[in-house]
């Protein structure tokens, strides 16, 4: 089937809905949203802790401080133009969410409640500051719900459970997308003037992750397969506090409320790693600290492979009142009551700092020179503006969705209002159909699930918190082998209706490709910065590496990845050593 909309949004998480809402405020354009999940199932709903904005409701705060923290938290790889826009805009954006009815928790004076979060400080690093605006411990859920509610109110058109399989890009102009309707197995072609990609992250490349089963890097990979660049893929955040083995997230808000990390002897080990802000240090540092403790034999459990998050010294009302959901997680999945016992935790794959490179208006970049793919936009976790640099601060992702989702929506609508439909190539859906056919008729007998499992385990072993030349080179070889096996995957369900097996097999293909971009980028960067910690290059090297990685798949030479670089936008804040 054939459809035509001026602006198409792919993905209905926080970024996608924000973009759709703002694009549809422009009355000159028609807008539709495609999502492989019902909008309210998007993983933005899992975000717990809060959205950072310098409202100063609890104590004095300024956008400059927020900007500084973001830049420093990103280990100075953050583009400072983006950080400045972000720190300023997010304040008014949070008020706007409140005006849309978002049920923020409140202070006794009726204002939006705020709490401390990792890496957020006052006066450029002096002490932790209450900056995370929260709605109990389900801030992301409330953002997702509120934005969806507003979309319902505005009458936005949704195509739910449509999985996008291809972007139609020719001569540097995006002309639409190809999507697979899960309910019927039909392949649809969407003709559009502007497409906004907001499909979130790809945590499922790892074994232990806080991410949903559906976060498989689809559109990042589709972009990359066209020979277009992915930026800063080596920077992948491991959140320090995932429930041991399961990866389910325990929000940093737990430490914001006073939770403490302890090793086997009960020692508050973060005092040794970040004397000033201790447990509220940025995530990369805390995750490394936990790994160090575990390596040095100070972990707990029979494999000594986790540490404890201790809330037991906090009053029951704080735990149950401000962190009810995570209390429930601990009780449900571990049988541990955080009021009386510490929670076993372990770093968990959490957030992609890298992704589709964009301008500050969300335009997708064609290469390192700043040229854009006309009519193509990206926002949210899938994109890299680069606000988060080498390491994202907690609460800055929700802010990113809101601020840059909105900018992308506005920019795309404005562009579409003034543009003509670029003609569609004949049989624009041919590639997608061929891929479906290949998987359905495959007879190689490889099981997609087994390949995925191996991918996740090896990525976890070789490209996680600590990396070395050796582990990553090994992973490069493993990926080659897995990709070869992937060509022999055969899908057993040949039906049309709700063929989830087919879609899972597709998703595995995407995971393999983003893993490739990530591993090559990481292998290439010979320094340690933010979330990218190399044991063979333990120091940050601003001389050689204060630059963004742009990884291109070489379309002429299969299996080859070309790395180029894009300069970091500096400004207000000079790169300094990062100590807390």
């Amino acid at each position, binding site marked *: 089937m054939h459809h035509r909309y001026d602006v198409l949004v792919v993905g209905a998480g926080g970024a996608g809905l924000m973009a759709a809402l703002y694009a549809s405020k422009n009355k000159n354009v028609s807008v539709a949203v495609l999502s492989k999940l019902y909008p309210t199932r998007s993983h933005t709903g899992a975000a717990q802790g809060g959205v950072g904005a310098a409202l100063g409701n609890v104590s004095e705060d300024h956008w400059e401080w927020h900007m500084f923290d973001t830049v420093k938290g990103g280990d100075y790889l953050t583009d400072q133009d983006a950080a400045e826009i972000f720190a300023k805009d997010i304040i008014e954006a949070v008020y706007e969410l409140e005006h849309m009815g978002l049920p923020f928790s409140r202070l006794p004076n009726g204002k939006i409640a705020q709490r401390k979060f990792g890496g957020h400080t006052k006066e450029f690093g002096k002490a932790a500051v209450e900056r995370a605006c929260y709605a109990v411990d389900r801030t992301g859920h409330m953002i997702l719900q509120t934005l969806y509610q507003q979309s*319902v*109110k505005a009458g*936005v*058109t*949704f195509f739910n459970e449509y999985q996008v399989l291809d972007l139609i890009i020719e001569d540097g102009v995006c002309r639409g997308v190809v999507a697979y309707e899960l309910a019927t197995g039909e392949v649809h072609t969407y003709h559009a003037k502007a497409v906004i990609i907001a499909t979130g992250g790809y945590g499922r490349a790892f074994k232990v992750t806080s991410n949903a089963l559906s976060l498989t890097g689809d559109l990042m990979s589709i972009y990359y397969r066209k020979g277009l660049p992915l930026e800063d893929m080596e920077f992948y955040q491991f959140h320090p506090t995932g429930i041991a083995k399961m990866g389910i997230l325990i929000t940093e808000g737990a430490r914001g409320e006073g939770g403490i990390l302890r090793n086997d002897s009960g020692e508050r080990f973060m005092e040794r790693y970040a004397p000033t802000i201790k447990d509220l240090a940025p995530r990369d540092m805390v995750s490394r600290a936990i790994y160090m403790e575990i390596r040095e034999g100070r972990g707990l459990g029979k494999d000594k492979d986790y540490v404890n998050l201790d809330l037991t010294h906090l009053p029951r009302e704080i735990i149950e009142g401000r962190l009810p959901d995570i209390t429930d997680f601990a009780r449900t999945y571990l049988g541990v009551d955080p009021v009386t016992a510490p929670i076993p935790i372990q770093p968990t794959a959490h957030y992609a700092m890298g992704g589709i490179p964009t301008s500050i208006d969300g335009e997708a970049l064609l290469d390192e020179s700043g040229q854009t793919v006309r009519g193509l936009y990206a926002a949210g976790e899938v994109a890299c503006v680069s606000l988060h640099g080498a390491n994202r601060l907690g609460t800055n992702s929700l802010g990113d969705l809101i601020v840059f989702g909105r900018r992308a929506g506005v920019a795309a609508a404005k562009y579409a209002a003034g543009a003509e439909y670029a003609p569609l190539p004949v049989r624009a859906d041919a590639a997608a159909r061929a891929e479906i056919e290949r998987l359905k008729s495959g007879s190689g007998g490889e099981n997609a699930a087994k390949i995925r499992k191996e991918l996740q385990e090896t990525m976890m072993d070789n490209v996680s918190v600590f990396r070395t030349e050796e582990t990553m080179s090994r992973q490069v070889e493993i990926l080659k082998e897995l990709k070869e096996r992937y060509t022999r995957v055969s899908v057993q369900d040949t039906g049309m209706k709700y063929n989830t097996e087919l879609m899972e097999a597709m998703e595995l293909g995407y995971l393999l490709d983003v893993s490739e971009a990530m591993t090559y980028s990481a292998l290439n960067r010979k320094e340690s910065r933010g979330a990218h910690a190399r044991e063979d290059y333990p120091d940050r090297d601003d001389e050689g590496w204060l630059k963004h990685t742009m990884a291109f798949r070489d379309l002429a030479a299969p299996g080859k990845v070309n790395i180029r670089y894009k300069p970091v936008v500096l400004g207000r804040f000079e790169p300094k050593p990062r100590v807390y």
Partner: protein
Amino acid sequence: MIRAKRFEDARAQAGSNSELAWWVFMRISGVALVFLVLGHIYMTFLMASEKDTQVFDVVVNKLSQPVWKLYDLLILALALLHGVNGARYSIEDYIRNKPDRFWVKAVFYSVVALIFVFGALGLFIISPEMLRD
């Protein structure tokens, strides 16, 4: 494709208060019926217990008194109204097809109305003259 239902669409659906009224009525009549019905049963038991063979007399005797006439008429009216509305809930729940629902309701209401008339007449016609002896 799903098109979000608009604000205006939903507003247009708003209608009458009758469901609320019935809801309240079910509760109030229910509470009243507790006393009426239990009273009725208790009374019948007491009065008819040992003199089984003369049930007819007992009943006629009782129903000849205007107070009891009224009492029983009230039970009859309230219970039927309450019961019929209760049965309507069930009809609306279990009969999915709209035309069927309409017919079932129509027939059901008519039958009950007929029985009510019948019962009310019965109550009023009873008089002491009907007693033997």
